[in-house]
């Protein structure tokens, strides 16, 4: 499906695909980890950061992107990777540590690279921003109108890397969009406790770039704002910053007891789940329920096929650990 021809249906399809991807991870992650939770056990060892609730941030922006546009994402990357078009089978296989994974099992869920669609992510807060500026600058120097998008959380804005990258992008008019997913928490610490301004979009003024603030976690609103920012970048006018108020429906990582949340918060947020809300909105706007059902089914089938592949794929030979330290 083409995001240009029917962006709203495309966004719905990819939100469902991303959510179903996370839903498939959940039971697999706890295999081998009960009754005693041990992160090292089971088919999905290590930390697992799920993106439930943040799908609008991914689809609203990525609906505008081409394969030659670059995206750098965060430690919570699945929704963005799926919206950017990362190969689902290779991504799922990577998360299961399999040979057919994106990097043959060397990176895992926080380190996904797919050069076919110019996607990568890093597990270190704020550190994808410099590379996004570089990717944008490379496009500009080559005379291409490709752009770059750097995703970051609201907590990452307090990293020096954000300020360095934002200033550099503005000074060099790099075609890059900084997309802040404000899910209100840096692991357990609330935004209000650690960030001096209520809206990080206000900080854009410090770098002479437009700062947009989007409330409501609605794909349509994000899509509209991203369209402006991306048009500005493609036409050589430089970077923009978009802060999106979104919701983290799960813990920081799987196994997070979330004792830092106020009572009732999770239930309140789940009642605002953006996917059923968006479906209702689409139906109210005349989309056929049968077509939405069909998109859901197609999305789920693609994810299920990817998980079937990942579960049955071979592990790498141990000696393959020594490959690809250098190209």
């Amino acid at each position, binding site marked *: 499906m083409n995001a240009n021809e029917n962006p709203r249906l495309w966004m719905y399809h990819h939100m469902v695909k991303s959510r179903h991807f996370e839903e498939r991870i959940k039971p697999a992650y706890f295999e081998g980890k009960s009754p005693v939770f041990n992160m090292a056990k089971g088919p999905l060892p290590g930390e697992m950061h799920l993106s439930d609730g943040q799908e609008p941030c991914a689809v609203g922006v990525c609906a505008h992107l081409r394969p030659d546009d670059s995206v750098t994402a965060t430690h919570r990357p699945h929704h963005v990777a799926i919206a950017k078009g990362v190969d689902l089978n290779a991504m799922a296989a990577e998360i299961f540590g399999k040979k057919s994974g994106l990097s043959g099992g060397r990176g895992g869920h926080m380190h996904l*690279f797919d050069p076919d669609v110019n996607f990568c992510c890093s597990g270190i807060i704020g*550190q994808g921003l410099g*590379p996004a500026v*570089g990717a944008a600058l490379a496009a500009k120097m080559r005379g291409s109108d490709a752009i770059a998008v750097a995703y970051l959380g609201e907590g990452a804005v307090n990293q020096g890397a954000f300020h360095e*990258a934002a200033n*550099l992008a503005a000074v060099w008019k790099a075609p890059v969009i900084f997309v802040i997913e404000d899910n209100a928490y840096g692991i357990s610490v609330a935004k209000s406790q650690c960030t001096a301004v209520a809206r990080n979009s206000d900080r854009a003024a410090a770098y002479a770039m437009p700062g947009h603030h989007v409330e409501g976690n609605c794909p349509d609103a994000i899509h509209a704002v991203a369209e402006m920012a991306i048009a500005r970048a493609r036409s050589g006018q430089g970077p923009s910053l978009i802060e999106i108020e979104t919701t983290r429906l799960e813990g920081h990582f799987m196994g997070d007891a979330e004792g830092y949340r106020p009572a009732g918060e999770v239930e309140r947020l789940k009642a605002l789940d953006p996917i059923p809300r968006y479906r209702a909105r689409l139906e109210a706007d005349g989309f056929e329920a049968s077509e939405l059902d069909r998109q859901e089914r197609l999305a789920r089938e693609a994810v299920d096929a990817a998980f079937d592949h990942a579960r049955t794929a071979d592990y790498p030979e141990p000696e393959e650990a020594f490959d*690809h330290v250098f190209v």
Partner: protein
Amino acid sequence: MSSSDQSVTAPRPEQPQAQRRQTIAKSMAEAIAQEMAANPAVLVMGEDVGKLGGVFGTTGGLLDSFGPDRVRDTPISETGFIGAAVGMAAAGMRPVVELMFVDFFGVCMDAIYNLAAKQSYFSGGRVACPMVLMTSVGGGYGDAGQHSQCLYATFGHLPGMKVVIPSNAHDAKGLMIAAIRDDNPVIFMFHKALQGMGWLGTVPGSITHVPEKDYAIPIGKAAICRTGEDITLVGLGATVHQALAAARKLEAKGHSAEVIDLRTIAPLDRETIIASARRTGRLLVVDDDYLSYGVGAEIITSVCEAALGDLKCAPVRIAHPDIPIPFSPVLEHFVLPSAEKVEAAALAMLGDTN
């Protein structure tokens, strides 16, 4: 220093009648200029690399030749511009970025060791990182402990990066060209005592004949810059010259010292070092980085693992002790390695107590 030691490299280049003698600074800039002329993907970024031509002369003349689009003065934002270089390299550009002093790595190391050095691995070899990070190292001129460190081992320890350290202008040009052409991140560490800046004392042996044409020196290959029979002296950067000076003193006392210039520490040319140590039976490593967990430890361990039975005495390392580099010349020169320290240690290993 005698004229015979002034072209410290091996295999020694043909010495033409009219030598084209140059500093390391000039040779680095020349190498970058030739690669920029040959390949439009090559560009330079860093603090003061434009009009100033680099605080240590590494980019002299480049702005005039190639313009501000390809020779970019950056804000004082190492995390920002080194991170940007990683993204540019992923996109097929070949950035040469300057970290003015290696001591500044603390403000930007993530971009170096977590991004640049792991881009290939985490992409299963599908995303290259053809970038060069050039950075000044070394003390001895009273700049104290935040502007005088070498940190060779810090970078050599971390996988995914190649680390080169030229001791002379000939090698600096060839190693820079090789570094720019390499599809992997290369840390190019140039020693301030060798750089050839007018305002900074320069070891004469670092100024050598440099061919005008472009040439690459293979990364990962050490040079035997003086052959000998009785002891192997291993140095890198500035300490190569200390080892050579000590070798001359030893020769006057009847001892034949072989001197190895590492040129690269990652990957380390263990083969050349081990072969030499097997032949001479004595191994002395001279390093101006911190002692513990250092280059000397790695080399000595490598030789002991492979050739312990061939050694006639315990290997020895000379390095900067595990203290911050002090300011006062009285303190600094007490702790830095020197030709005299190398000679004394070698004589002790040779059992020469005269």
